[in-house]
């Protein structure tokens, strides 16, 4: 049901197809209205398990590509990792399968008004949302450089596409199976300096985001980080996706990754305190957990 012309819609999506992409799966859905509203960094929340599913929580995925029109109507594409039962179920779907789609959800990457120089940093399949971002940046005349990291070659996503999307592409793998051996943090400071990067955009595991934010800070660039975290509802009602973020007033608040994020300014997120409620947080400390459900 759609009530606003902007903001998310809830529609029945139809699977166009699922393709393997290295260790990942690439799912294309027909979902009316989502692509039109898409901005890079936003995500979709998909139901899993089918009609008789015992899995109530949606799985959320940043949008990889969005095409408002096409032979089948508007489509959105996402990249799935396996290992979670819901994502595994999605990866086995055949064309024509239907699921409930919410999206686009969340705050997108903030785009620069000027044609500045940008470095995009992605980890594993979480690099997916960076390609749509690169396109929009290039449309605005920005110079785009890209760093893609992964544990090993099969867990790298979009390395080929990156060559089209970016001027410079650096690939790192922890096992050295392709590109440079090591993590993205080893190459970032040098790249930012070399390219005179103004804005760093990052999407990936927390460690990568933290490293990207620190490298940006050290270099004097802005950073925008898309935080990966469990999002039980994706719509802001459950309060389970919170992380400590420092506001303009200098006060730390537990904010929702799904609605206040998933994209945050990298210098605002208290990376070292993820998974905790740091003391001094607005409204903290609650009475210590007592072993009883508290609400």
């Amino acid at each position: 049901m759609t009530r606003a012309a902007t903001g998310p819609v809830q529609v029945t999506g139809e699977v166009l197809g699922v393709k393997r992409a290295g260790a990942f799966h690439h799912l294309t859905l027909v979902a009316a209205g989502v692509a039109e509203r898409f901005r890079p960094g936003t995500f979709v929340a998909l139901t899993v398990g089918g009609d008789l599913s015992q899995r109530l929580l949606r799985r959320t995925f940043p949008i990889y590509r969005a095409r408002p029109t096409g032979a089948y109507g508007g489509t959105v594409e996402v990249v799935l990792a396996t290992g979670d039962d819901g994502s595994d179920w999605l990866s086995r779907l055949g064309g024509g399968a239907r699921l409930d789609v919410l999206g686009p959800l969340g705050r997108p990457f903030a785009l620069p008004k000027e044609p500045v120089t940008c470095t995009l940093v992605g980890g594993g399949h979480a690099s997916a949302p960076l390609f749509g971002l690169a396109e929009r940046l290039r449309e605005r005349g920005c110079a785009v450089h890209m760093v893609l990291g992964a544990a090993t070659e099969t867990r790298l996503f979009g390395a080929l596409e990156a060559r089209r999307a970016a001027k410079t592409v650096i690939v790192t793998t922890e096992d050295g199976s392709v590109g440079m051996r090591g993590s993205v943090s080893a190459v970032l400071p040098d790249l930012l300096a070399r390219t005179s990067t103004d804005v760093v955009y990052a999407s990936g595991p927390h460690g990568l985001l933290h490293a990207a934010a620190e490298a940006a800070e050290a270099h004097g660039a802005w950073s925008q980080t898309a935080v990966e975290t469990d999002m039980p509802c994706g719509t802001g009602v459950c309060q389970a996706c919170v992380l400590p973020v420092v506001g303009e007033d200098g006060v730390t608040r537990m904010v929702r990754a799904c609605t206040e994020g998933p994209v945050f300014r990298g210098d605002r997120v208290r990376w070292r305190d993820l998974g905790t409620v740091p003391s001094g947080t607005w409204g903290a400390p609650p009475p210590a957990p007592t072993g009883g459900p508290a609400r």
Partner: protein
Amino acid sequence: MTAVDLSTSLAGVTLPNPVMTAAGCAAAGRELEPFLDVAALGGVVTRSVTLDPRAGWPPPRMVETASGVLSGTGLQGPGIGGFLATELPWLVQRQARAVVSIAGESLAEFAELARRVGNSPGVTAVEVNLGWPEDAATGRDPYQASKVVNVVRRDVPRGIPVLAKLAPVVHSVVDVTRAVVKAGADGVVLAHTVPGMAIDRRTLRPALGGVTGGLSGPAVHALAVRCVWEVHQALPDVCVVGVGGVRTGYDALELLLAGASAVQVGTMIFHDPSSPARIVAELEAELSQRNLTRVADVVGRAHRPEGELS
């Protein structure tokens, strides 16, 4: 299709239909705006409002279970000041029927919350969260529960029902209901989540930041039906609101048949943010296809001998 009168009475206040959101599962209603019209629901129950702002428990705050979730958020929220300044006015402006859930840590806190909520315009009802804090066992112990209800009822104007929300895991939900009604509650909400726990596959330690949490969702629906049934059986004149695992119009009907005058939808909102509106429509269809014309006629109907109509 038979035309259906969905209106119901919540302890004397008429609601256009019996489907509300459940406390803590719809924030303060605003987040649902893209997916449904809050004014078209029977009511919107806010997350439990505390006196002071609260940051809540550390994450993880929710794990998925079979047909349910286990959660412990630690009542994160802006406190009564923030709530009255922004959240309540939004609901009122949208013409939603606002049911304000309050959670205090002491009788004095409950009294102050009651006073401040009771003095605010546009409040349809007050729901007293007695399932928290667990250690004070207020929702389990008839004496503690009735003391809280007593102070709240004193400070909320007549005409605004005070509903006591109870824990399901007690010797006798009937005894607690009897006690809170005697203390002035205009109705009870049955029931809160069931205490549960999960262990993380990786750390082999408790999966929730708060160690234990509350189990909710379709998994526990049968438990809610039983609580409503028991209370309506023993105390047929008490207004009961049923909550627990409502996913479809039939689940809502089941609670009405067991004796509830209204129902709340919680966990299913995470699955489907438009579900409360869908459930209103499905409930209408369930009644219509059985030639049942009024919600009022089905409340408690499962207690009547088969075939008996009213």
